[in-house]
């Protein structure tokens, strides 16, 4: 009989869930009818299952979605800014190429037409050639750095950018409680100065203390002018840090109390 009970117990759930065949059902009911122990077990299980059906799950709080999206935006931001940094780094290297030699090149070439007009001496001409040779060398060195820094699938694009005159890049990090005020200042700052790749240059993260951390990538041809403008825009706030990173991006951190 014990063997029979074990067999019945093994198929009990399957019976309850309607997973047994006609023949098994007959055997099951026959046994239950005569064995009190198995009948009790059967009733207990059915009772527990009926209670399980009634277990209620609370609704997730509205905060949950906010928290999830805040995390996701943070990740997305990190991903994008790494992407950006990488993109900008290459751009910046190109900019360094130019920055190192642009002044010289520009002067030299600006002189050329007038020189030609004026007619230049052989001496002047050779001096000019020397300068050009020097800048050419510098450019090559920088291009070399560029090549080793990034597996250079975008080489052509970088050259193009360099030819266009690659800009200065400022990463301005602002920490503030007043998002709107900061926004309007930033808007003013970026309308005139941004050369971006179509992505929103402003990223905002809100922390748990309702403080906003804004990062703005501002790029401009005239580095010094832009720097002055940034410091002027935020001059009544504390600029806590100001440095040029390895990637050539100039970081300015502004704390608005």
């Amino acid at each position, binding site marked *: 009989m014990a063997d029979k009970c074990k067999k019945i*117990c*093994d*198929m*009990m*759930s*399957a019976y309850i*869930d309607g*997973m047994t065949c006609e023949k098994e059902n007959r055997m099951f009911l026959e046994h239950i009818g005569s064995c009190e122990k198995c009948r009790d*077990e059967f009733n*207990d*299980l059915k009772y*527990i*299952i009926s*209670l*399980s*059906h*009634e*277990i*209620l*799950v*609370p*609704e*997730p*709080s509205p*905060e*949950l*979605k906010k*928290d*999830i*999206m805040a*995390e*996701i*935006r943070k*990740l*997305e931001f990190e991903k994008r800014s790494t992407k950006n940094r990488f993109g900008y780094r290459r751009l910046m290297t190109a900019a360094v190429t130019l920055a190192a030699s642009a002044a010289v090149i520009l002067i030299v070439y600006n002189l050329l037409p007038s020189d030609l007009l004026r007619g230049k001496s052989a001496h002047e001409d050779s001096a000019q050639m020397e300068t050009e040779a020097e800048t050419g060398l510098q450019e090559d060195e920088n291009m070399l750095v560029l090549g080793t820094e990034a597996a250079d699938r975008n080489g052509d694009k970088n050259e193009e950018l360099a030819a266009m005159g690659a800009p200065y890049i400022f990463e301005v990090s602002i920490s503030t409680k007043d998002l709107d005020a900061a926004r309007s200042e930033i808007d003013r700052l970026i309308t005139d100065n941004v050369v971006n790749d179509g992505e929103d240059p402003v990223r905002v993260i809100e922390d748990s203390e309702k403080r906003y951390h804004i990062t703005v990538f501002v790029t401009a041809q005239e580095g010094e002018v832009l720097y002055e403008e940034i410091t002027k825009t935020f001059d009544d706030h504390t600029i806590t840090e100001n440095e040029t990173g390895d990637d050539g991006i100039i970081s300015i951190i502004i704390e608005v109390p």
Partner: protein
Amino acid sequence: MSTEEEVIVKNAQKGDIEAFEEIVDLYQKMVYGLSYKMLGNPEDASEASQEVFIRVYRSINKFKFDSKFSTWIYRITSNLCLDIIRKQKNEVLYYEKNIQTDDGQITRDIHDKSASVEDTVLRTEKTELVRKAILQLSPDYRNVIILRDIEGESYTRISELLELPEGTVKSRINRGRQELKNILLKTSELFSDSSVKLNRREGS
């Protein structure tokens, strides 16, 4: 998968954050619900749900449309919860003590209620005891019992969700239910004590 959902998932794979937000809208209830059932409290469930969506976000490009998206998210949730449960294993003893404390509260609560709602209250409290007992099942049993007895999923769907042969699902459901009954007999007064207390009160 409905084409609409497919579009949302594809957009999210391209990095569209709004599409991802729609995914959160569509699945947070399921993810949170399962986490709550597996982990047993709202705080852990919220934390786990966040982690699930972070995982979904990070690995969404690994989803190749060879299963339902819901199945994929379900598996991520279930696996994460199982990990958490396994890490919590040492705290189970502590949890059992907690249940006993709760029982005390339950008894007190019942005395505060009016007699007319007592039946409903008692039923609810019993359900609560079952919920807590499910949390004491070993992770493998807990998983199938939640799916079968709370969610009402079919054996076939459970074997698909958990990637287990149907035979294994069948035997786990059966053993899980028996185990659940043993836990209830051992750790709570589902079948005796609370009803005895109530009967005594009714008699007085």
